[in-house]
């Protein structure tokens, strides 16, 4: 039987969700609607008596103080239109899952009932059918994952309501394995790859074909009952293992690079040469105390925090899924990256999230290309996904930023980073290492496997196109994951497992395949894997990216303890097989072998890609706009630019204080709303040692030269961390490259240039991390951030996010960016040059320019050391980094965040070749800070700064006036700080 329990708010009770929906309809869609009320619908499948239904409805499903419910008749009351939105079959329904558990608890053992949730929106107002259709498809439901029904009042049957919709997955259970003939011509190989979303090239397909022709392979396969033809399980497994996503083919390619003078260099792997190469070089200089513990070998990087604890950090992206379903994509992004530090070494407790988003303007008002969601919808959806993922997991979101550029219309970038902490040793063993012995059980814990997330790894290795698969979209479930992590940390501390890893891209194929390298092989039975519903084929079980799962190696002597603790804590754990030393990746479905691959071929059989790059420096027109007459208005316009303005409405919706160790919050200042430069947290509550987290990202400079873009991103991250008090000697970096396809082809005619951009960014990464002594400890790349449908191609600007995690010995020394008191002296540190190429000021006038900021690493490093000492000695009242919008913006932010005024004289600013006030105010020269200092500390501070470029340029004043004297000696800005702040807060006050 199918029943419906519907729950609505009582008369007179505010329906906050309904009101919020109404606001969105008006603001996002521009449709007038008088009222929106919501009704929650629970569709229950099971044999239940009327008494039981009443107990469920009146018990866990409704709140007697504010809600009413109906059973098998509609709860919706007067409306003009009703829209009911539910999930499509197989899409994760978190509320439905919790509801089903509650029903099970109420009815007792053995009484199962499926619960599917949907929501009704009851609209009142003068709306026509087209309006309602737009509201349903453009705001309330995402057709990829949701189903909706529109009912006008005239068709409404008040006895019956809307008919039941049961999104049950019904698939014939046919666990068949197919074999595929690869002895075919290139065209057919290409078709096989494309048809199955394998993202393999013809050359790679041929390598696979040739492997299956080897005599030893044929013989060994024959022994386990396989033919010489590849099975779908094997082909899918190879495709995901060899995907760009998993193998980083471009970063490991042999690249022939031609520079602008015709000089040619050959680079054997960007990753090995520049990323790992720089870290190796830096680590040599750290001896005798090399605080890097585990780099580039595990799911995340590990560094020492102190003798007792180690820190773990990783940043990932989840771009394509977020383009298709912003909420689910971003939610999965954050809970997905959580599993990286969690699955590093023997497992770490998660202590912070940091998120960086790149979007097109939410005010975009041109026609949208096919399959693209409006940037406002992406913005809200991603924000909400990260909110639910972060907040519900109990991990503070401590820092982040949002970058806007029209080219992120084709694909938004959703960077999610997570840090963890673990005891330096667990039961006497170092916690950052992994070991697996043949005979250890392969155990999967957490969620079940469904068709969700199939082909995520290969799909993200392609551009977004017409046929991009829907199954790649999934919705994370933070609570299932939370229960699993609670359980696994207990199991870790009791020594119940030997190794742990995450099931992310590539699913079991990747997690078990990777882990098996530690023992030398594995044998796994897919029939044992717990499924969400019947009907999955073996290859689907193997590569499904269904969320909230970890794979573990559990020694035989611990298996009983492990499984019983899992049962007690209500976490599913299943033995799928054993790790072996056979050298084989051996997969069975029941008794039948469905895959047998040599581990060596699976992991190292992929031929190195050969690519060509050619660097031709671009040249843009020099801007020719005059210096503005009203510099106050110019400053306000700059403060209102999307890349500069306040992101408070987003920040507030993230819990940035859970776990109790918050020291420097993302919002600081006199009324808690100024822009903090970096986060400081205290992960161990009985200690004052702190962790600093900061990010650098500046894609606009990449339009001129990605070398300097990368240098500036690194400088920005380091600068932000130093600004709050991090020690420059204890910073670790994470590089995260998001590029557009840099491989020359029909689709990408400028591939050589884009690859040269990638090469140059990597060269800068090497040069600057080495100069700063900031080793990369882990990283990530996402190389196909293009959109190609029909004639439209949109490529993102090459984007490098550089994130740093640092250490502070005593958080009580931390400094925030807000001016502290009247009479304090205002300093600028660092030299301002005529470097407005790629700046916000030029962009404001529609120009790119050419004079991109160039980082002088040696000078910057010395300045950072000096500033760090000044902060350490308590000489600095406030410190704010100069980035987007330059000195003008940094000074204004310092003043209004402190609720104080400022008097500034630009003539005192140390500058080279800067003749105009607007250039001096808005140049984005790097490695600069605005610092305020108490007058009594003046001498000590200035002594500390000796030998560096700095100057006193004004004072903090009590009155709310922000006054700037220009190069000509006249007052060029005289504004009220509240007006400035309002300009800064207004644009994104959603």
């Amino acid at each position, binding site marked *: 039987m199918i029943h419906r329990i519907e729950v609505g708010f009582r008369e007179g009770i505010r329906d*906050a969700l309904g*009101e919020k929906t109404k606001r969105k309809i008006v603001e996002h869609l521009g449709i007038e609607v008088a009222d929106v009320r919501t009704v929650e619908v629970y569709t229950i499948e099971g044999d239940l008596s009327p008494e039981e239904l009443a107990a469920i409805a009146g018990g*866990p499903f409704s709140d007697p103080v504010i809600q009413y419910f109906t059973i098998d008749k509609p709860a919706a009351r007067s409306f003009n239109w009703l829209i009911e939105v539910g999930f499509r079959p197989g899409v994760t329904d978190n509320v439905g899952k*919790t509801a089903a558990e509650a029903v099970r608890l109420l009815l007792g053992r053995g009484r199962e009932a499926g619960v599917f949730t949907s929501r009704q929106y009851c609209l009142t107002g003068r709306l026509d059918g087209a309006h309602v259709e737009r509201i349903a498809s453009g705001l309330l439901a995402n057709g990829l994952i949701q189903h909706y029904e529109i009912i006008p009042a005239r068709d409404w049957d008040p006895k019956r309501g809307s008919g039941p919709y049961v999104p049950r997955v019904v698939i014939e259970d046919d666990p068949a394995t197919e074999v595929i003939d690869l002895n075919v011509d290139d065209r057919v190989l290409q078709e096989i790859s494309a048809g199955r979303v394998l993202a393999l090239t013809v050359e790679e397909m041929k390598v696979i074909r040739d492997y299956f022709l080897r005599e030893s392979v044929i013989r060994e396969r024959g022994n386990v009952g396989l033919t010489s033809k590849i099975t779908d399980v094997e082909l899918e497994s190879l495709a995901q293992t060899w995907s760009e996503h998993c193998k980083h083919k471009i970063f490991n390619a042999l690249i022939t690079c031609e520079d602008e003078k015709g000089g040619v260099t050959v680079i054997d792997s960007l990753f090995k040469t520049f990323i790992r190469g720089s870290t190796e070089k830096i680590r040599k200089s750290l001896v005798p105390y090399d605080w890097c513990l585990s780099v580039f070998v595990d799911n995340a990087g590990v560094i020492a925090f102190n003798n007792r604890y180690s820190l773990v950090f990783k940043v990932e992206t989840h771009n394509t899924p977020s383009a298709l379903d912003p909420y689910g994509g971003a939610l999965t992004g954050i809970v997905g990256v959580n599993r990286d530090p969690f699955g590093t070494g023997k497992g770490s407790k998660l202590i912070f999230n940091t998120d960086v988003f790149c979007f097109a303007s939410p005010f975009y008002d041109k026609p949208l290309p096919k399959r693209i969601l409006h940037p406002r919808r992406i913005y809200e959806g991603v924000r909400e996904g990260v*909110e639910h993922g972060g907040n*519900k997991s109990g991990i503070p979101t401590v820092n982040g930023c949002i970058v806007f550029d029209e080219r992120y219309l084709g694909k938004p970038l959703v960077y999610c980073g997570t840090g963890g902490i673990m005891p330096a040793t667990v039961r006497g063993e170092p916690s950052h290492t992994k070991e697996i012995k043949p005979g250890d059980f392969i155990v999967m814990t957490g969620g079940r496997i469904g068709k969700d997330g199939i082909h995520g790894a290969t799909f993200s290795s392609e551009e977004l196109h017409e046929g991009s698969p829907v199954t790649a979209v999934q919705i994370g479930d933070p*609570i299932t994951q939370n229960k699993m992590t609670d359980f696994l940390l207990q199991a870790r501390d009791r020594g119940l497992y030997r190794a742990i890893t995450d099931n992310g891209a590539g699913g079991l194929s990747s997690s078990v395949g990777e882990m098996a390298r530690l023992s030398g092989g594995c044998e796994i039975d897919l029939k044992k894997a717990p499924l969400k519903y019947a009907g999955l084929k073996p290859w689907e079980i193997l590569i499904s990216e269904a969320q909230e799962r970890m794979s573990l190696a559990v020694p035989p002597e611990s298996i009983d303890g492990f499984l019983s603790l899992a049962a007690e804590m209500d976490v599913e754990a299943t033995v799928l097989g054993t790790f072996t030393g056979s050298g084989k990746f051996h997969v069975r479905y029941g008794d039948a072998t469905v895959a047998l691959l040599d581990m060596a071929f699976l992991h190292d059989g992929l031929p190195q890609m050969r690519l060509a790059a050619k660097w031709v420096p671009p040249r843009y027109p020099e801007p020719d706009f005059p210096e503005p007459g009203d510099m106050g208005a110019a400053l306000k316009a700059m403060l209102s630019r999307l890349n500069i303005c306040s992101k408070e409405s987003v920040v507030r919706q993230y819990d940035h204080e859970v776990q109790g160790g918050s020291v420097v919050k993302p919002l600081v200042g006199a009324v808690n709303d100024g822009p903090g430069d970096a986060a400081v947290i205290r992960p161990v509550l009985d200690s004052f040692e702190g962790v600093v987290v900061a990010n650098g990202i500046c894609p606009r400079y990449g339009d001129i030269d990605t070398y300097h873009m990368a240098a500036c991103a690194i400088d920005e991250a380091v600068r932000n961390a130093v600004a709050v008090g991090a020690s420059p000697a204890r910073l670790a970096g994470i590089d995260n490259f998001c590029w557009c396809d840099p491989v020359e082809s029909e689709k990408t005619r400028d591939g050589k240039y884009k690859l040269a951009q990638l090469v140059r960014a990597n060269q800068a990464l090497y040069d600057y991390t080495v100069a700063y002594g900031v080793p990369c400890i882990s990283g990530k790349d996402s190389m196909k951030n293009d959109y190609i449908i029909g004639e439209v191609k949109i490529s993102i600007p090459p984007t490098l996010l550089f994130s740093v995690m640092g250490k502070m010995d005593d958080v009580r020394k931390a400094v925030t960016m807000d001016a502290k*008191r009247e009479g304090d002296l205002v300093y600028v540190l660092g030299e301002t040059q005529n470097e407005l190429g790629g700046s916000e000021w030029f962009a404001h006038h529609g120009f790119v320019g050419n004079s991109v900021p160039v980082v002088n690493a040696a000078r910057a490093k010395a300045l950072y050391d000096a500033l760090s000492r000044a902060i350490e000695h308590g000489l600095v009242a406030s410190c704010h980094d100069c980035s987007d919008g330059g000195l003008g913006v940094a000074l204004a932010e310092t003043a209004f965040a402190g609720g104080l005024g400022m008097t500034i004289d630009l003539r005192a600013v140390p500058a080279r070749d800067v003749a105009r006030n607007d250039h001096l105010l808005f140049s984005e020269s790097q490695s600069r800070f605005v610092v305020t200092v108490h007058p009594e500390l003046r001498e000590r501070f200035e002594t500390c700064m000796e030998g560096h470029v700095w100057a006193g340029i004004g004072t903090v004043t009590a009155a709310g006036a922000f006054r700037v004297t220009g190069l000509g000696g006249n007052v060029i800005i005289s504004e009220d700080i509240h007006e400035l702040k309002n300009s800064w807060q207004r644009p994104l006050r959603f």
Partner: protein
Amino acid sequence: MARHVRSIVLTGNGTNCEMEMAHACRLAGSDVVDIVYVSELLAGRKRLDDYDFLNLPGGFLDGDDLGSAKAGAHRIMNASIRGTDEKVSDQLARFIRDGKLILGVCNGFQLMVKLGLLPAFDGDYATQRVTLTFNDSGRFEDRWVYLGVNPRSRCIFTKGIEGLYFPVRHGEGKFIARDGEVLKRLHAQQQVVVQYSSGVSGEPVMEYPANPNGSVDAIAGICDESGRLFGLMPHPEAYLHYTNHPRWTRETLPEEGMGLLIFRRAIDFIRNNL
């Protein structure tokens, strides 16, 4: 001889402030502080009877999927402890009967309200009379708020405290009473303990954002008739040290955060009176 104080911090199924709540109990002088999973209670390995001070921390019990703390409350009422007919709610009833102390913060407060532990008129700890629902803003927010403390309340946790400053971090914190009678009685019996205030005076405010969620009469926290059970939406355990304060870099503050006062009152009371 001073009494040994044993505190339990309940966690699991989505709770996430257990660490700092346990830290607060330790700093306040509790002799025993155990973080215990609900599953350990259900397995019968731990019992509430072995403790004096029950802490129900913030978080998202079961994702707040059926409304904040609904599914969590339902589990406490209906899940049996392994091998027995006893429910966690039976242990809870005993705990209350013995005059022990319970503090619920945020999701813990929501849990107490939905179990009927608050306001528990006439010693009835099983009927829900008030609720905490979606903020008027329709969104989760993290922001610090000022609280005025009712000096006439019997609440043990706030004795002698005038005002407080803590963060709220919730999407469902709007306090609503079932009807006017319930609200009247809450006030008459001085069970309204803390109210959102502007910070300048201690007077209750209804304006956003000082009142962050639109709570009726600006109610941020209530106690039972005995004053031994206390629940509030703002997080005292988030302000244990001055570096937690959002403006510590610009104000001179005492070493200890205001949140610790709440825990000290509880521990001291147990030590001297139980």
